[in-house]
């Protein structure tokens, strides 16, 4: 019998704690598969954030370093500067990366730090129970935006991929989602390409993944996928914003 699909070596056998229908799990799998397929798992040091993926260090089957809220890019910088031969990635939520840790991600990108970032944008703070994130859509309700996000009060949602793409040191920037098998395949391709940029020593790379939080959005997993497609993608367009120029 031919094996069509099997679990990647990049993940441990630990059961994840993610809510049913949460796309964090899919993204973990894609990252792990990419590490395995690129043959770097044994050389990888991952940096876990604070947020729902705080336990990512238990799930990825490689050396892992837990960071304070938002500081993963600085921690990754320290690791990579000591061990330039290792592959270093951060996995961060939108509260983590787009709020408390904006300085750290902007400057890691700005320095052209040779690390890769997987950025989970679910337009909300998942772990702490559904508070507003910098990425929460205008009109979207959150526990700290009970009347819906009002742009006159707290500004419009921040577009991280577009912002980081303006920075010279960022060599790979792409926004993907994982709401359908086709999107999942594209996301995997983006993650691999992003990792390749680090492996070739070109600079900083980030993949922003539009992700669901059925629990805090108050939707079923299926409704959540649809809500993402109908509401998030129009504001956060998918696509590649930057890749290193092909050099022959």
């Amino acid at each position: 019998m031919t094996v069509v699909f099997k679990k990647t070596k990049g993940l441990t056998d630990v059961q994840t704690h993610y809510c049913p229908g949460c796309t964090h799990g899919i993204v973990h799998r894609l990252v792990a598969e990419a590490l395995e397929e690129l043959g770097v798992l044994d050389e990888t040091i991952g940096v876990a954030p604070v947020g729902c993926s705080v336990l990512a260090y238990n799930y990825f089957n490689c050396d892992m370093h837990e960071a304070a809220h938002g500081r993963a890019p600085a921690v990754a910088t320290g690791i990579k500067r000591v061990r330039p031969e290792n592959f270093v990635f951060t996995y961060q939520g939108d509260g983590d990366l787009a709020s408390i840790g904006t300085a750290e991600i902007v400057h890691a990108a700005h320095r052209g730090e040779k690390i890769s970032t997987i950025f989970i944008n679910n337009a909300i703070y998942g772990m702490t129970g559904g508070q507003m994130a910098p990425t929460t859509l205008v009109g979207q309700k959150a526990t700290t935006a009970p009347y819906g996000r009002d742009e006159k009060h707290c500004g419009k949602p921040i577009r991280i991929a577009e912002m980081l793409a303006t920075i010279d040191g960022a060599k790979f920037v792409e926004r993907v989602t994982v709401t359908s098998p086709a999107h999942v395949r594209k996301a995997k391709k983006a993650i691999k390409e992003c990792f390749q940029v680090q492996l070739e020593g070109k600079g900083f790379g980030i993949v922003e993944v539009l992700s669901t939080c059925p629990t805090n959005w108050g939707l079923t997993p299926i409704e959540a996928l649809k809500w993402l497609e109908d509401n998030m993608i129009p504001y956060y367009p998918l696509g590649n914003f930057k890749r290193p120029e092909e050099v022959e």
Partner: protein
Amino acid sequence: MTKVLMRGNEAIGAAAIEAGCKYFFGYPITPQSELPEYMARELPKIGGIFLQAESEIAAINMVYGASGAGARVMTSSSSPGISLKQEGISYIAGAELPCLIVNIMRGGPGLGSIQPSQTDYFQATRGGGNGDYRVVVLAPSNIQELVDLVIEGFDIADQYRNPVMILGDGMIGQMMEPVEFKKPKPRDLPKKDWATTGTKGKRKPNIINSLYLEAEELEEHNKKLQAKYQAIKENEVKVESYNIENADVVIAAYGTTARIAKTAISQLEKEGYKVGLIRPITLWPYPYDEFEKINDKCKGILTVEMNTGQMVDDVKIAVKGKYPVHFYGRTGGMVPTPGEIVEKVKEIYGGEI
């Protein structure tokens, strides 16, 4: 070995390199900037890395990552910058990683001043970040001692897997004295088999972490930390004392103020007074036991600091109510003069206070 004349801040850098530190992450702040400047100049020459971070928060988190990856690594700052580093220091202590943190103190609170002070004693010795953790705090009072403590500090950090802080002030950072670089007493340093270096397919993944979601697990972790702190208290106390068996008055002072106290003591001795000195070199662990050696007829202890009396609490714990504890301090960057200390000691002698 020949002695070289060095400024405090640069001597720290030279000592760190001597100790095998190849990584420095920092952010400029007066009065310690000569240290990152020195590292920026010297580290690339030996294949090391100096990186100016975007903030103190980033700098300490770079230290956190670098230490987790197994490196000897340091950062330095001055008071407001150390406040920002506290989050990272708590994480580093929680994850049990070694590193050297230098605080060349300036006046506070807030932006304060750029003059020397000792106003971060509480923050250094009691934590500053969240949680039940301790940092080994070393307080040199001359440049030779500064160099010795930086070199030994890295070993202490590695031995106990704990952050070590050099607590100096603007005066120590800026003054110049001749120094020589000596090897510390050899220690049995544990292998860094916990470091994140990539598994190479040869071992289970290493995880650097300070999160324990189960109450029992976190309590166990805290018990383990406390046992380590107990071992540090038993093995690492450093103190210099002078004439405390005969003294009528004993001065307690550390760092810069201890130097000044020494001048005051020799002046007082010429006039026939018997004054002793206890100079804690480790501020944590504190040399409480040394105070037991003070003679029973002592009239009182004078604590001298460049703050409003932060070490007084420790001195009171140490003397257990046996002697009255007095305080003399200056703030705002004012350094107590020997004359002021002499006067204060005489007041204690005369029973005026």
